[in-house]
């Protein structure tokens, strides 16, 4: 899905390391993740945070992902990407405990 000329398969150690980094980042960013989720709950009253986040998310996808891929096109489609984004944010917000690494790993294997 990434914009890359080389297709490298991720190694198990790298996968583990990425999960650990993600969990640590979500611990740090939990207040922001929470505010984004909250903003979507009452979108009529507080749409600014969600709109800013969504705009930046799409910008980053266009910048770093291969936009010719069907899966990436799905991420860019605003009608379809809401559910994917919310579920991803929920997964991150559920994994901020000390056992977050194991939880995130389980979520990813089950996905």
């Amino acid at each position: 899905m990434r914009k890359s000329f080389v297709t490298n398969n991720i190694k198990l150690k790298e996968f583990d390391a990425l999960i650990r980094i993600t969990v640590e980042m979500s611990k740090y960013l939990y207040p922001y993740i929470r505010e984004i989720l909250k903003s979507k709950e009452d979108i009529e009253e507080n749409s600014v945070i969600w709109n800013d986040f969504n705009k930046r998310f799409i910008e980053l996808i266009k910048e770093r992902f291969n936009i010719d891929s069907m899966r990436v096109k799905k991420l860019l489609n605003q009608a379809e990407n809401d559910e994917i984004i919310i579920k991803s944010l929920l997964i991150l917000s559920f994994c901020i405990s000390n056992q977050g690494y194991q939880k995130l790993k389980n979520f990813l294997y089950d996905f």
Partner: protein
Amino acid sequence: MQNKFSFHQSSASLEIIGLPDYSDNENEDQISIISQWKLTIVDKPLIEGKIEHLGPIMDAFYIYSNLLLKNEIPIYESKLIDIKADNLHIHNVVLKSSKPNVKPLVLKIGNSLLSDTINCFDQLNESPKVKIKKTDMPTNIPKKLRFGLKKKVKFFNFFIPPFIAICSLILFSSSFIYLYSPFENIEKKEQINPE
């Protein structure tokens, strides 16, 4: 004197009050015998109950959050608590009282409050100071999920024994390659039929 521990996460706070189990040589600052618990969510009524209610309520939230993420129908029903999704952002929590003639308490919580509550439960689970003895309560986990779990177990039970058997046969038979010498056989045949 009873011990009291609080677990906070943004808009949710869980308070556990109880005593250590001295018969199990526990420290004075631990809790094993929970006498009271309170879950406070900002702008929502206070949730409190007996010790036997805490485990099932925690399980309900964990199972529901898993259903929500796995694209299953997010419905959890039990004698004590029902959780259903209004939409992707709002969840309906119905807490049923064990006392007769008491109306169930209905709460509408968003994703932010759901994640706060689950993080409070996570903190409680990971706390070395509080031990929870979980009680079994009948639950109505959607059949689809139960079937999925059973199917996985059945699949592995069905698949693994023949797989191990085939692997062991291959390993066992491959060891005979060292005993079999095709050149000797050809020589013997030549000796029997010299042409």
